[in-house]
């Protein structure tokens, strides 16, 4: 039995909206799992159901062997970091962190030790007497983390905790969250709509769309073998190129371009996906196109072009000399493409 088990979880709001549909998931002890998906896909609802802040319409959640459906959030022994931190504005940083411990009847001395230890770990030991309103965004973030850590819960739940920080601080906190999670080995679930956060943080990623789990896997699996068209499009930056095509005897026809897939597939209505960095540009490439637009990103550049009337992009080292309007030659290897059946949307 897994540490946290979700079985056929469904959430229907009173107004009839189905936020989560028949979701099942097993999470092992010590794992760092990231829920990722576009906004409104139900990932936060799922997290809040695990926390107990949202009723479960159908299904069962069990934590550490006990079914927790009906257990009050205060008894579940989970800690959550909220998007807007939800620090207690009238309490000092120390009291913010100590409040949960006080409610559990822990002795003053022990509370002191625990809070001070965690404050040192997060480098906020200088701020313990301040009120949240006197802290910067990054500091508030740390306090919110500290409040969760100090309770030593069974699970950490993160609800988009980095989205209110500026880019630089976000990267820094991301690394720190990863480091802390490794160090403490506490099972964690992190909700985000940012795929970079998902890829870098998670041991496993759960891609959710419209209340349904599209794919569960390691970041590598998700990236290299997306199960559905949605996952293929959602993960990876720049986005994967998707071409509508017809496949006859293992040869994909995109406009007048032919790509040999080295198999014997036959599909009338298919989508062929190619990551922008899997398009290999070379002087003796088989295909050629005109670069409509070149975006310079420093070490890389992105070229936007068209095959027939379908747009695509490719990413290459900016050492290559190519300007808008130039014609370039490229190859696409049949082994690096992803094939989806358009009728089911799933991988072939």
């Amino acid at each position: 039995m897994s540490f946290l088990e979700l079985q056929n979880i469904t959430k229907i709001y009173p107004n009839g909206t189905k936020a989560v549909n028949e979701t099942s998931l097993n999470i092992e002890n010590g794992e760092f799992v990231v829920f990722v998906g576009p906004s409104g896909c139900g990932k936060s609802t799922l997290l809040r159901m695990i926390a107990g802040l949202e009723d479960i319409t159908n299904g069962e959640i069990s934590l550490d062997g006990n079914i927790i459906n009906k257990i009050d959030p205060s008894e579940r022994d989970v800690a959550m970091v909220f998007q807007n931190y939800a620090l207690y504005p009238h309490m000092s940083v120390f009291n913010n962190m100590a409040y949960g411990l006080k409610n559990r009847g822990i002795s003053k001395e022990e509370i002191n030790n625990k809070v001070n230890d965690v404050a040192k770990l997060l480098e906020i030991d200088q701020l313990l007497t301040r009120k949240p309103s006197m802290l910067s965004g990054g500091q508030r973030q740390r306090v919110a983390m500290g409040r969760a850590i100090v309770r030593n819960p069974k699970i950490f739940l993160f609800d988009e905790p980095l989205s209110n920080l500026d880019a630089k601080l976000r990267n820094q906190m991301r690394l720190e969250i990863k480091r802390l999670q490794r160090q403490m080995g506490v099972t964690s679930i992190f909700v985000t709509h940012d795929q970079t956060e998902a890829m870098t943080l998670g041991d496993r990623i759960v891609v959710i769309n419209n209340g349904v789990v599209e794919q569960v896997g390691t970041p590598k699996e998700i990236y290299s073998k997306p199960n559905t068209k949605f996952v293929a499009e959602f993960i990876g930056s720049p986005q994967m190129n998707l071409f509508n095509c017809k496949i006859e005897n293992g040869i994909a026809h995109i406009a007048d371009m032919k790509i040999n897939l080295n198999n014997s597939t036959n599909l009338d209505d298919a989508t062929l996906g190619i990551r922008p960095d899997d398009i290999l540009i070379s002087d003796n490439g088989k295909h050629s196109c005109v670069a409509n637009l070149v975006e310079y990103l420093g070490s890389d550049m992105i070229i936007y072009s068209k095959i027939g009337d379908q747009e695509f992009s490719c990413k290459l080292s900016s050492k290559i000399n190519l300007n808008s309007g130039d014609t370039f030659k490229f190859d696409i290897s049949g082994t690096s493409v992803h094939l989806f059946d358009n009728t089911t949307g799933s991988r072939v």
Partner: protein
Amino acid sequence: MTKYISSTINHFILSIGLLIMVVPIWIIFASSTHSSLFINTNGLQFFLGDNFIDNYSRVLFKQSGFFNEITALKMFFNSFVMATGIATLSVITSLMAAYGLVYFKVKYATFIFWLIFITLLVPLELRIMPSYIVMSKLNLVNTFAGLILPISASAIATFFFRQFYKSIPDELLEAAKLDGTNSFRFFIDFLIPLSKTMIAAVFIFMFVFGYNQYLWPLIMTTSEQYWTVVMGLKTMYGSIADRFAFVIMSMIPPVIIIIFLQKLFIQGIFQNK
């Protein structure tokens, strides 16, 4: 230069406002330090006289009323008890009512709230007969409880607290829940400290409201022992100097309350969190 002019104009306007408010009070105060005879012959006074201690101590300790059963000092005590009682109870009842309406999943909470709010259309003067009958059936005529209870629930205070609670983000309650708090502790540990400034503002409003009550204590009390300051002002004293002294003294309790709670009061009124 324009800055200098506009600030001069501002100060000029403010000074006029200040004079309009302060001068009448000063004239009453200055006159109250002269003897009645002197005022009767020379009119209102702008400068202090030398009967201050005489007049004020006579007013404070003189037995007065129709049956000479009460002193001004006792009236101050009565008014203070009544005003404090009304203010304290209003704060407590409206805090709790707002808490119930906002944080518990009460069916028709909005409807119930508007029902409470509609009571503003029925001020005490309108329901004075039924209120009196209820109090008299409860044997509360001529008691402080009778003076306080019928005016100790405030719809407007409930409204203030409700709006304030609605502006507190839900995440605060959720975070507190995960930290193991229950409904009662959330009220004590979060809502009360967070509404501290609003409590001060409501307390001052209700204190002044209670202190200014005239009709209700007039009807509820048959014994002079329960007369309040405002009732005293009406039935007070023959000599003009004594009346002036009493008027000045009657202003002191609300002013003291405001001075003490001023800082919180202003924060409470302008709270825009």
